[in-house]
């Protein structure tokens, strides 16, 4: 029991590279900017007052407590601002805040603005939003509350960092544990469906017109392939917390989860979703993995260099 408690304490106190948080900030803001550029040609169809779903329909159906674009228009009614202008204003603020977040200029404020603008846009366009918006919202919330401007930012150049080490560790652990809960939940929910045990889930997903990108009809003749893919998905997701927390399995698990999301991006056409999940996993776990691997390499090099110099000394060369 004492050992468990000590391990938990060690987990939350052990220093982690502060670059992890900086990488997270840059990855998320860069992703959100790219997403915006990709969606921009159809932006008004998603968020405009006369879009696919008009504001008067989408906003009352929203379950969120975030203010919507319609609310902003009501607030600015005394300025006689048109509905389209409200969309341009919120979008413009979103772009500027993401650029600010990317370069780490007034990071906390920019994180707050990016999170708020994203929330406003999706309170109106929630009927068109899917998993990618859920994770962008979560990531932007972390960019707002965590010290993500600690390094690789303009803010960190101008002043000496007073952020204690424990806060960096806690912040990184928070993101990691959120991912762990999410994947565990995904794994358990998939394991409850028969389609994930007989391989039909992968088969159906690849056959659906929405996701159909590559002809995978041959899979029907090799049912073991989709079955193995389904089982491995359940294992990778369901055992993600264990796989990522154990030092020995972390590298394998990270490669597995990245492969899974690459598969989703390529074969199901969910490019943005796949890219975001890859970035979240890399930013949460890769710097720690690199630190661990480099310390292993250093240890290995030190040992062998020591043996080599001793041998050389014995031979009397040095």
């Amino acid at each position, binding site marked *: 029991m004492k050992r468990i408690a000590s391990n938990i304490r060690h987990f939350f106190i052990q220093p982690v590279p502060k670059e992890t948080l900086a990488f997270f900030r840059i990855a998320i803001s860069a992703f959100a900017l790219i997403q915006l550029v990709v969606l921009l*040609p159809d932006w008004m169809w998603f968020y405009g007052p006369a879009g696919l779903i*008009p504001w008067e*329909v989408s906003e009352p159906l929203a379950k969120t407590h975030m203010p919507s674009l319609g609310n902003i228009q009501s607030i600015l009614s005394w300025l006689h601002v048109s509905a389209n202008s409200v969309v341009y204003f919120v979008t413009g603020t979103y772009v500027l805040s993401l650029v600010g977040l990317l370069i780490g200029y007034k990071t906390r404020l920019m994180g707050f603005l990016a999170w708020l603008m994203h929330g406003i846009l999706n309170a109106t366009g929630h009927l068109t939003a899917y998993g*990618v918006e859920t994770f962008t919202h*979560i990531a932007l919330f972390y960019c707002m509350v965590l010290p993500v401007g600690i390094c690789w930012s303009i803010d960190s150049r101008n002043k000496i960092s007073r952020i204690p080490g424990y806060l960096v560790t*806690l912040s990184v652990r928070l993101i990691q544990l959120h991912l762990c809960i999410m994947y565990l939940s*995904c794994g358990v929910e998939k394991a*409850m469906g028969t389609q994930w045990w007989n391989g039909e889930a992968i088969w159906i997903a690849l056959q*659906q017109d929405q996701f159909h990108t590559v002809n995978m009809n041959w899979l029907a003749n090799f049912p073991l392939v989709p079955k193995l893919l389904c089982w491995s998905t359940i294992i990778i997701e369901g055992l993600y917390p264990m796989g990522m927390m154990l030092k020995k399995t972390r590298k394998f698990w990270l490669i597995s989860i990245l492969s899974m999301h690459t598969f989703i991006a390529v074969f199901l056409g969910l490019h943005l979703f796949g890219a975001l999940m890859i970035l979240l996993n890399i930013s949460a776990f890769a710097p720690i993995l690199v630190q661990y691997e480099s310390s292993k390499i250093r240890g290995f090099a030190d040992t062998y260099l020591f043996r080599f110099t001793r041998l050389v000394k014995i031979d009397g060369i040095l």
Partner: protein
Amino acid sequence: MPLKQKLYYALAILHLLMVALFAAHSADWGRNNRIIKSLGAVGNFTGSNNIFSFFAPGLADQPFVVYDVKDTTGINHVIDLEGSSRDFSNRVNNIYGYLTIPEARMIISASLAKFVMNECPSAEKVRIAMVVQKIPTMPEFRKGERSKWVFWFHRDFERSLPLASVH
């Protein structure tokens, strides 16, 4: 441990607890429960009130909408909503998913019809027809069955009147 540090740890634990509770469908435990409602409201802001059931427990039939537009000259055109990116179709398909909910069917159909009328100024009538893709299982596919689109429902809309007929 200083008080400030303790507070940060407490907030982090509370946040993760909420993430875990909502991921475990705690929102369904008591829909009218005040505490769960309040936690859900907080979770809207923090992103801790999500259910992570992507493609789980299984995949349902995929809905799609066919737009049959009749213009002022009486000619019918079948159109498809096409955007500039792959993500556009993912998002539009998300809307179509709501058409499977009977209560949402009318309002979503009307919204889509209004959008099509705005995009096609010559349109006089629009028929919103929902079809569903039925995919055979792997053994059925091996026996020669192929995926097919099955008609589900349609709604007709006219430019002058929001709703002409309901079938």
